[in-house]
């Protein structure tokens, strides 16, 4: 079977991701595309630099697909994340979810992106006209101690 979750320095192709979940049982394919935004709270971003702990990040992406499988057993999920230097409008992440009926595909897709922002070791550094900064908005409850469900 083809890999369902991967991290790459290459530009992401939407069809590469959606083709992994399209199947006869599905009546809905929800595709979420995260892109590089130019302005954040009035501040102009020039480009982003993404970095990852690849071995762990791919495992954590796989874990998210397993969590989705538990909550939405009829869903098929594929996730691709790009790292390295990304320009404005470049695609950083693609999540494709197929389900028999549309509602589950929206819910599972939302779940996937929220979990990526919680447990997948990928970091982005924003470069502005006047500086640079590592961004981090981990939704930790207690610093340094992962949530129980994160230790699986």
């Amino acid at each position, binding site marked *: 079977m083809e890999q369902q979750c991967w991290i790459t320095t290459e530009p992401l192709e939407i069809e590469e991701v959606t083709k992994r979940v399209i199947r006869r049982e599905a009546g809905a394919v929800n595709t979420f595309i995260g892109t590089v935004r130019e302005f954040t709270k009035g501040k102009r971003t020039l480009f982003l630099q993404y*970095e990852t*702990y690849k071995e*762990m990040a791919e495992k954590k992406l796989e874990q998210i697909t397993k969590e989705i499988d538990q909550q939405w057993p009829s869903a098929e999920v594929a996730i691709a994340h790009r790292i390295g230097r990304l320009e404005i409008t470049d695609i950083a992440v693609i999540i494709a979810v197929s389900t028999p009926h549309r509602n589950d595909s929206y819910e599972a897709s939302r779940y996937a992106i929220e979990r990526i922002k919680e447990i997948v070791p*990928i970091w982005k550094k924003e470069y502005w006209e006047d500086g640079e900064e*590592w961004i*981090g908005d*981990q939704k930790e409850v207690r610093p*340094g*101690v992962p949530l129980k469900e994160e230790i699986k």
Partner: protein
Amino acid sequence: MNTLLFFAGLKEAIGTDEVRLVAAGMTLGEVKEKVRAEYSLDQVNNCMMAVNEEFAPEDTTITEGDTIAFIPPVSGG
């Protein structure tokens, strides 16, 4: 021997992405405190910790050969 991995802002603050340390027998929390003290870096406190590519609680005892990763707040997506 154990390997400590640092990423993102923490890597830049420490100046390297990898440090070798004999940590067998220590707890993960003790390793974290040692790094925090040695580099005078309170941002270590904001890190989640992983052992061999899995998140682990701070009372985990390190064994020979374990790879310990300091995971600063993530920002993928």
